[in-house]
Structures are given as C-alpha cells and as structure tokens.
C-alpha cells in the first residue's frame, strides 16, 4: 500500500512538472527567454573554450583595436580582447545573480515562513523590520552596505542578498498565509508533527510556485544591480572581467572608441531580457491567477 501511495505521489509530481512545461512551451516568448538564458549559462560554463584570448593578458601593441576578425568586439586601452572579457563576464554576472537570489530566497523562506506560520507578535516584528529595509531603495541599500564592507564579488553578493531578503520575505509570507489554512496542515498538527516539520515539509513545499518565480526574477534584477554597482566603482573591481566595470573603464574613451561600451551593455541587456521573458512565462505557467 505505501508503495502505491509513493508511486502516485511521484506520478503527481511528474504530472505537475509536465503541466508547467506544457504551458511554458506554448508561450513562444518564454521559450525564447529560456533559450537565451541557457545560452548564457553555457557561455559561462565553457568560457575558457569559447574565449579566443586570455581576458587578462595585456597586448600593448594592439590597444583600441576596432572590431575585426581577430578581435570580434575590438580591444580595450590595455589591448585586452573585449570578446573574451565579455564571455568571462557572463561567469561573474551569473555567479552574482544566482548566489544573491539564493541568499535572498533562503533568508526570505526562513523569515517569511516563521512570520506567516506563527502570526501575531512574531509576524508584526518581522514584517515591520522588513518594511524598514524596504523604505531604503534597493541600490542605495546595497551601496551603503558596500561602503561599509568594501568592494569585491563576495561583498557584492552579500550586499545585494541582504537587500533581496525583504522582498522574498513578503512573497513567502503571503504564500504561507494562503497554504496555512488548508486541511492537511491541520491534519499534520493533529498527528503531533513539530512546527519545524510542518513548515519545512508541508508549508514551504506547497508555497514553492511564487518563490521560484521571485527567484528567477531576482536573478535578473541582481545582475542589473551588480553591474550598476561595478559601474559606479563599488562592486566588482577592475581588472576583473565584469560587464559593469568594463563599461566604467571604457567611459573615458567613448568619444573615439564607442564600441568599447557597446558590447558589454548589449550583453547585460540580452541577459536581463532573456531572464525577464523566462520569468514572466514561468509565472504564467506556474500560477495562472497571476497572469496580469
């Protein structure tokens, strides 16, 4: 008997995934977004294979080379190949985007599920604290944290992650409130399951749809915020091949070498575009009620 139950549960899970995939597949824009995102991930993974040059090796004989066959995106003031730098930049952006979102997601799940499940004073304290963080615009909060922590990839992730927690907490809390009233929660309480077990095994698992959507969307906004931070000199520092810091380094030369700012910017745009399209599609597929 338990075997059959387990099998049917497994089957149901597969069916749900299949349903989501079917619905996602119908949305051509979302599929295009997914393809762009997968392409970005592949570029990041195989950066060493794709990049024709070392992104950090200077070639002072070939500075400010216009885009040509040897250097597809041209070379910068140090003669570094821009194409290789853009390709390697995908690694940093993806690393920051995904890690920040995971940080925000974990923080949000912990705080949001505690607030939603326990309610009353616990909820008031947590949610008011989140309101305070939300009163400071995201980029500014990240900038202030960076000013204290100092620059670098790790600190960028931490600063943006802290800024992402309040939004995740709100999403998780409202999802938990929706799930909490269900009979299976009451049943779990009746058989004496601990609060920890109820939250982790029943509540979080059943509130996953909006959390997944928020995480996907957050990867895009985190990448954008990280490149912004690097652009104003607070995030990832040169000479690291990162799109924002590449733009910042190319700024003094835009009068004569406009191509230097073109490609890193296009890379950021394509990444955000793909992730947004995919995120929108995923939201529609996972929860038709949120369609608008």
């Amino acid at each position, binding site marked *: 008997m338990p075997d059959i139950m387990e099998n049917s549960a497994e089957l149901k899970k597969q069916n749900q995934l299949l349903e989501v995939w079917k619905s996602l597949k119908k949305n051509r824009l979302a599929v295009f977004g997914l393809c762009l995102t997968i392409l970005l991930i592949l570029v990041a993974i195989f950066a060493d294979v794709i990049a024709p040059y070392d992104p950090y090796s200077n070639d002072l004989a070939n500075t400010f080379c216009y885009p040509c066959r040897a250097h597809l995106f041209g070379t910068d003031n140090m003669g570094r190949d821009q194409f290789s730098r853009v390709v390697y930049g995908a690694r940093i952006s993806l690393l920051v985007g995904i890690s920040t979102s995971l940080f925000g997601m974990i923080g949000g799940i912990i705080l949001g599920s505690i607030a939603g499940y326990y309610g009353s004073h616990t909820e008031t304290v947590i949610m008011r604290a989140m309101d305070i963080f939300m009163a400071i*615009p995201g980029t*500014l909060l990240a900038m202030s944290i960076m*000013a204290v922590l100092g620059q670098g990839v790790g600190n960028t992730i931490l600063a943006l992650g802290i800024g992402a927690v309040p939004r995740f907490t709100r999403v998780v809390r409202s999802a938990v409130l929706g799930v909490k009233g269900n009979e299976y929660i009451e049943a779990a309480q009746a058989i004496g399951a601990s609060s920890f077990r109820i939250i982790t095994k029943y509540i979080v698992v059943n509130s996953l749809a909006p959390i997944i959507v928020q995480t996907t969307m957050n990867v895009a906004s985190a990448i954008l915020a990280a490149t912004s931070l690097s652009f104003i000199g607070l995030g990832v520092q040169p000479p690291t091949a990162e799109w924002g810091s590449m733009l910042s380094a190319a700024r003094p030369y*835009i009068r004569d070498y406009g191509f230097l*700012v073109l490609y890193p*910017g296009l890379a950021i*745009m394509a990444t955000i575009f793909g992730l947004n399209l995919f995120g929108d599609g995923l939201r529609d597929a996972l929860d038709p009620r949120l369609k608008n």
Partner: protein
Amino acid sequence: MLRYVGKRILMLIPVMLGVSLIVFCMIYFTPGDPAEYMLGVDATPEAVAAMREQLGLNGTFLEQYIRYIGKIITRFDFGTSYSTHRSVTTEILDRFPNTFRLALLSMVVSAVLGIILGIISATKQYTIFDNMASAFALIGTSMPSFWFGLMLIIWFCLKLKWFPPSGFDTPAQWVLPTICLGLGSTATVTRQTRSSMLEVIRQDYIVTARSKGQLESVVVLKHGLKNAMMPIITVIGNSFGVHLGGAMLTETVFSIPGIGKMMVDAIAIKNYPVVQGGVLFIALCSSVVNLLVDLLYAYIDPRIKAQYSKKKVKKPAANQKTKGVA
C-alpha cells in the same frame, strides 16, 4: 479619512527611526576612526580626541545614537560633511532641486508616453502596434539605464552634437537625462496600462457604453482608462519615489549635481555623515511619496473613500432608526 491620514503619518515615525538605526549601526561598526580620517595621519592624539568630541563620537553606542537622533529632531542637523565641512542639511537642500526636477520631468514623460502606448497596445491587442509597444516595453525594462545614458551621450552629444553631455542648468541639458531615466519607467507604465486596460475592456459596462452608441474615444478614456487607473498610478508613484531618492546612475552618467551623485561621491570617499543623512532623507522621500499615492487612491476611487467614511455614514442612519422607533 483624517484619522487614516494621521495614522499613516504616525506610522512613518517608527519606520524612519528604524532606518536611522540601520544606517547608524552600519557606520558605527565600520572599522576606522572618522576623526583620524578627517585630520589625516599626522594628527596628534589630542587633536583627534578633540575632533571625536566635536563629532559626537564619544560615549556608548546608545548615547551616540540618541545624540544623533536628538540633533536631527531638534535642529534638523544631520552633521557636517567630512569633505566640504558644510552642514549635511545644506548639502542635501542644495542638490534636491535638480533631483526633484529630473524626477518630475521623467515622471511626466513616462506617464504620458506609457499610458498612450499602453492604451494603443490594449485596444489593438495582437496587432502590429501591440507587438511593437510590447517589444519596446520589454527592451525598456531590460536596458541598464547607465548604458542607455552612455549610448545617448555618444550619439546625441558626441556625434550629432545636439545636446551638451553634462550639467543640468538649461532646458537643453534636461532632455537626455529625462529620456534616460524615463525609459525604464515608461516601459513599466506601458506594461501596467496594457494589462489593466485589457482587464477593464472586457467588463460589461464597456459593452453597455458601446451599445448605447458612445464615441469609442469616450469609451476608452472615460469608461476604460478611468477604471484602469489605480494600478497605473501605483507604478507611476513608485517610480517617482525611487527617482526622487536620487537617480544615482543617471546623475552619475550625466554629471548632474543631484542627491544621487552626492551619495555616490560620498560613499566613494567614505563621507559617512553625508551617507547617513542622505539615506535617511531618501527613505523619507520615498515613504512620503508612497503615502501620497495611497491618499490619492482614496481621493480618486469612491469605493475606498466610502470605506473610510463608512462609520460616518452608518451613525446618522442608526440615529434615524432609533428616532423612528422612539
């Protein structure tokens, strides 16, 4: 209604205290001594001690925090800038007009353009117009504003020489920053207008308006847009609040002396009083704008207004009833 407004204003106080505590904590636990930083490495210990006293850096965490908040509440004094030695309040107020002008201009542009594009998109759903407007909105939300700003400078300042690349004094200098900052919000407003108009257009009262022979423009604007306006106002209000807090990137790219540029510069040289004061001011701005947006709802939506004045309406009714019985 007044009670609601009062309650909302009172609720701002704990939020602002919370923000001040966060900012104060961040700076308090930062390694390094601001007094030494201000005086340089050659300063004598006595001079450093005197400077610490002057900056209010002596005493426990709580004492320092209370002193800091006390100064703000009693004298609106956010401290003195390390770099210019001027009061932070003056620094903020000097730059605020530029930021306000930029935020207002880009809000007007994005509201007008976004609503027009959104309406076209919704009324001509699945046509070439809709696809073009949607594509514009998607690209607009994906484009980093600082990159778009650089592109505008390359084309319109350096190549075509139509506009100056920096500053914010003459109307010619307002054009590019407004476009740069407005693009993202125009895209968001377009998307929001499209989706809420699509929802409204399918309602029965639109069919009724059409069937009684109303002009299509009246149907769309008066019956449609008016009912779809609430979420659109939220989006416009939110982006105005964020921009008012300093469009850090746009102001940096176009070298506009506004709040955003001030914050970027202050953070770069660890000018903590300006950072603290700026964050508090920006948080206050965005909270006040959010509050105004909420009040605007109540003003334009009779349903919400009725909700707040419910008690007032109910009471006389109850009185009449008792009178009648008596």
